[in-house]
């Protein structure tokens, strides 16, 4: 006897029929099963009855909005991706095998750069030493010049010497001594005034202060006397008071100088 289809297979055939995909041979096989199976037969009859023109079932037509919406999505994606893809392409191009020599060359150049930088970073110490030696030499030269110029007969040369000492970063006792000699003995009042102003720069040195106080009694120019009196007030040098008193006793003292000295003495005492 011919083997009859079981329900599961028959149902599969009905499903195939729904999908318009049941071969004639299987249809015969199915019909034999249906003779003895009411459940499957009912399903089969229904499937046959509704085989209609499904295309007639209503469907909406795509609207203009749909097309527009799609184009916007596409546009958005093109923009978004063109940005990232540009970067991706850029980086991909950077690391191609053809670029290997370029990379090698660049790295070598960078290494050389670092080497030179390192060398220079260590070199300045030597330069600093050279600079220090050089400035010491310039200092010594200036001192020599000061000592030479200060003994010149020309007043302008001696003024030059005094102004040169202002450029010296530090002065030694020899220069100070020479300046005091000029302050006390130079015949030109202008030179003495310039010297006084120069010495004032180093008034924080006890030797310079002492020298300035001693110089008070030796000055005869009113300009120098007035200046020195002002300086002593600025320096608050009380030891200078005695020298000024002695100066006031002198009958030759200029009237202007006398006034300034008296004023200074009031402040100092």
């Amino acid at each position, binding site marked *: 006897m011919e083997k009859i289809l079981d329900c599961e297979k028959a149902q599969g055939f009905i499903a195939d029929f729904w999908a318009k995909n049941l071969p004639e041979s299987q249809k015969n096989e199915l019909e034999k099963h249906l003779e003895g199976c009411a459940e499957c037969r009912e399903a089969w009859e229904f499937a046959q009855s*509704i085989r209609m023109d499904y295309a007639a079932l209503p469907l909406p037509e795509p609207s203009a909005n749909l097309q527009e919406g799609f184009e916007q999505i596409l546009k958005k994606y093109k923009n978004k991706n063109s940005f990232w893809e540009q970067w991706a392409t850029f980086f991909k191009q950077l690391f191609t095998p053809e670029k290997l020599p370029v990379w090698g060359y660049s790295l070598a150049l960078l290494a050389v750069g670092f080497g030179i930088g390192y060398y220079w970073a260590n070199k300045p110490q030597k330069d600093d030493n050279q600079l220090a030696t050089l400035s010491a030499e310039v200092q010594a030269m200036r001192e020599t010049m000061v000592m030479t110029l200060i003994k010149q007969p020309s007043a302008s040369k001696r003024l030059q010497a005094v102004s040169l000492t202002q450029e010296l970063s530090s002065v030694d006792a020899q220069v100070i001594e020479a300046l005091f000699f000029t302050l006390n003995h130079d015949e030109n009042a202008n030179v003495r005034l310039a010297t006084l102003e120069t010495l004032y720069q180093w008034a924080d040195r006890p030797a310079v202060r002492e020298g300035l106080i001693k110089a008070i009694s030796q000055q005869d120019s009113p300009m120098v006397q007035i200046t020195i009196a002002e300086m002593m007030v600025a320096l608050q040098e009380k030891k200078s008071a005695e020298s000024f008193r002695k100066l006031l006793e002198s009958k030759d003292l200029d009237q202007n100088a006398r006034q300034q000295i008296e004023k200074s003495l009031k402040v100092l005492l």
Partner: protein
Amino acid sequence: METLTDNALMTRVKQGNYDALGLLFKRYQKPILGFFYRMNGNAAESEDLVQMVFERILRYREQFRSEGEFRTWLFHIARNVQHDFFKKQQKEPFNKNWEDWAAALEAENTADGDLEKIQDLALLDQALKHLSPDKREVLVLSRFEELKYSQIAEILNITEANVKIKVFRALQDLKRIYQTLEHGKNT
């Protein structure tokens, strides 16, 4: 260009030629719209979902395998979009109670001998809408979108035999609903 296969076009999209998607959109906007419309019955909502499908195609273009079939891949995406949409909406499509609808149809009393065929179609349309979404889905995909069971199996990630069982069960449910509606109409 029209002679290019779906897969050739999608391969171009994958390579960054997004304009190629325009042709695929032209080819498939109607079938996909039809699928959504059969599933949710709302034309405007369906159009939104069609756009979502094409956006996903762009987003997941790298996942397209040229040895697979574009149409299957497309419906797989459409099905996921539909699924996500239902979940998000937290509602059943056509949530109108079909018994209410049967009553409404009865009240309309539109029985007209000449229009019997159209009425049968309308009845079938309504019966389909009252099927559960998973059952409606297999019937829509197989009959309206004319996908093969092997393709549906791939889309739903089940075996072909399982698809046939689902179709058969869906037909049985459809029959029950259809007959109830018919009964309501005739009484």
